[in-house]
């Protein structure tokens, strides 16, 4: 499938109708047949109405928007008018339908994009694996025996396999960047609070953000402009540093080599107290997640996915003063790190500590010991969300091998600079998407 900007150009110029793009997309998704366990719902009727509206706009000479006719999907936690918002849980399968679209969907619709599908996730976004009791475990398109990462695993897998040109996920502790790294595509976690969270099922409000997945930086730039209005100006001179310490100690050799190739003279920065930061993030997430679901847990705990139920129950039992201590540490830490990185525009760090783990043995090596992938794949992303910085996961170019990503971390509000730097890396061939061998080869 073409990139989003290419599809939009074809539709805008009349080479292809939005309806034809949609039909090809729906045919592709039907052919996929649930092999990836990435799609939880197809919104064919709604999509046809949106595509028809785009074609009508073009026919009447109106500007259909920069994403005219581009099909996309959203993680199963965005409000879609007329649909129950389930957040991947059987508990909300029969919830009252949403009365309006989430704000991010409204903005994409305004730009001409066509919503086609809802996508799989860890229940309530609590996990890095997309192991879901209701819908199943999402498979990695590069090796179906491996995890796609999570919690936005469906959103990542469907884009990596080229059934959709882009999708939206959410990132609380790494839920966009982890699956982006494991499936070899681009995933952006914006500066905390920059993209609209209206109509998105929350998880841990201190860290929740929405973020897009794409297969090119041109698409990511276009989405960023659509979702934000695109008023940012990137820096001309980009000062780069590499993150050392625990980031380097738990990195793949290829990630270290790539960071050296990208910025051989970049200074190595050790973020202090990184283990403490991750622990504080873990505790805040558990406490906020537990508090959010406390009432439902009290009503019917057994209706929850077993993989998240016990974690949420434990989080609900955390003492309030422990949560406050973690938040106090966060406030201090954010300011210390902001001062420490003041002289750098982009920090390079691994996005995940390893390639996608096997579904049959979902464990990874952290600090030399095996630990559960579901909880620990976000070891490198969690400390960054903890302080609210923007981070773009970029795929290393490694044909024939399992994907791996790097994080380009910026200062608050510097997404334009991150995108500019990522475009330079893509132009130089240092990063870029490698399609899975059996990626969808449809026309659209």
């Amino acid at each position, binding site marked *: 499938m073409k990139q989003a900007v290419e599809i939009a150009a074809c539709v805008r110029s009349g080479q292809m109708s939005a309806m034809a793009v949609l039909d090809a997309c729906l045919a592709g998704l039907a052919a996929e047949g649930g092999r990836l366990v990435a799609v939880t719902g197809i919104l064919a009727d709604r999509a046809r109405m949106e595509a028809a509206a785009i074609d009508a706009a073009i026919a009447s000479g109106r500007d259909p928007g920069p994403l005219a006719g581009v099909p996309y999907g959203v993680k199963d936690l965005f409000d879609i008018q007329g649909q129950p918002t389930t957040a991947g849980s059987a508990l909300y399968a029969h919830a009252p339908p949403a009365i309006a679209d989430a704000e991010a969907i409204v903005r994409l619709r305004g730009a001409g994009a066509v919503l086609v599908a809802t996508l799989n996730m860890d229940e309530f976004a609590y996990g890095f694996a997309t192991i879901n009791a209701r819908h199943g475990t999402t498979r990695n398109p590069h090796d179906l025996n491996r995890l796609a990462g999570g919690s936005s695993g469906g959103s990542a897998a469907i884009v990596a396999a080229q059934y959709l040109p882009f999708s939206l996920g959410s990132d609380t502790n790494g839920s966009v960047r982890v699956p982006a790294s494991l499936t070899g595509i681009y995933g952006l976690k914006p500066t905390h609070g920059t993209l609209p969270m209206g109509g998105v099922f929350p998880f841990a409000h201190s860290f929740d953000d929405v973020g897009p997945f794409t297969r090119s930086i041109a698409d990511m730039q276009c989405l960023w402009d659509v979702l934000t209005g695109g008023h940012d100006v990137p820096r001309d001179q980009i000062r780069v540093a590499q993150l050392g310490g625990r980031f380097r100690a738990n990195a793949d050799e290829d990630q270290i080599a790539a960071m050296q190739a990208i910025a051989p003279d970049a200074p190595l920065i050790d973020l*202090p*107290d990184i*283990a*403490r930061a*991750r*622990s*504080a993030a*873990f*505790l805040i997430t*558990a406490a906020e997640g537990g508090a959010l679901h*406390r009432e439902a*847990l*009290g009503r019917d*705990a*057994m209706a929850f996915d*077993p993989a998240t*139920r*016990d*974690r949420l*129950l*434990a*989080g*609900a*039992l*955390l*003492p309030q*003063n*422990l949560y406050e*201590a*973690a938040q*106090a*540490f966060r*406030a*201090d*830490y954010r*300011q*210390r790190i*902001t*001062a420490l990185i*003041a*002289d750098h525009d982009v920090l390079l760090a691994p996005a995940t500590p390893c390639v996608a783990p096997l579904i049959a043995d979902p464990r990874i090596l952290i600090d030399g010991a095996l630990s559960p992938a579901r*909880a620990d794949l976000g070891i490198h992303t969690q400390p960054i969300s903890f302080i609210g910085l923007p981070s773009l996961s970029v795929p290393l170019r490694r044909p024939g091998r399992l994907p791996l990503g790097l994080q380009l971390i910026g200062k608050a509000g510097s997404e334009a600079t991150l995108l500019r730097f990522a475009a330079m890396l893509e132009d130089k061939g240092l990063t870029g998407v490698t399609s899975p061998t059996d990626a969808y080869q449809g026309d659209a």
Partner: protein
Amino acid sequence: MVRVSKPSFLPDFLLLCLIATVACASLFPARGVAVPWVEATADMAIALLFFLHGAKLSRAAILQGAGNWRLHLYVLASTYILFPAIGLAMVALFRGVADGLLLTGLLYLTLLPSTVQSSIAFTAIAGGNVAAAVCSASLSNLVGLLLTPLLVGLFMALDGGGETLSWRSVQVIALQLLVPFLAGHMLRPWIGSFIDRHKRVLMPIDRGAILLVVYSAFSAAVVGGIWSQVGIPDLLLLLLLSIVMLLIVMGANLGLARLVGLPRADRIVLLFCGSKKSLVAGVPMAGALFPAAQVGVIILPLMIFHQIQLFLCAALAGWFARHPDDAPTMQRPPLPRSVPEIESAADKCGLTIPQACMAGVTANLALLDRHADTLFATDPS
């Protein structure tokens, strides 16, 4: 970029130069025909100093840290409300005990803005919120440019010191302080980057101007008989009062910070920016605000306070740097771990843990307990 130097307990170089200048003025005061020349040069030096202050002040730095407005209000309140209140109380307490002009000097120092450079440097060493410190200290200086002369006029009259804000003072403030400051600031788009790049080269001009004002002031004071007026007991009393004043302000700021729940990084800003008084601003302002014969005595308390604040802040910044956060001093809240503890905690928040979940909940609480250990560890490497 803030240049961070190690905390030092030695008298700073500026103070040593000031002592040498005072000694020089005491031994070789400007007399006779030299006086108008020295005073005119000192006046020009004051104007030059404020021109440089204006050119150095970054509006962007103020705007960047302005979001933390609550913190900046606390710093301003400490600088312009708490300090003057303590100053007035001390003057009232020691009137008749200490020299009147020295007490005027003590009150004058409490009306001054905060320092910029050392407040930021100490905040950085202590691991505080540097962006907020830059904003707070800059704001304090900007506000002080107008507020300090007004407070001098108001409080000196209240104190009975006789000096009110006369028309001549207003003219002097406008010509020597405001106009050069505004001129420097207006020219910042053209000269700002040059000044920022050549701080080291410009520092001797900055410092030299201060020393010239001090020489001029002390020459007049020596001729007027300062050393028969001020003795060792006066200087010791000033030393003691400076220490007490600083301890009260720091204690109050720390107490306020805890009361309103400021995070540690902001507590450090309030502590350092809210407890400083600027010698660099105070000396030339005194030159502009007070009669030449009084300036020497009036700035004496400020010179003593300047060194005391450097001693204390260096020690405190070092302590903060060695104690990166409050975690070791906070009590680690216990987590429910055993089945009875878990059931009791669940009961308190209206939950019942299903039997089938107890093993999973116990395992997850054990994981969270390890994370709590890491959060509270002194060395979580």
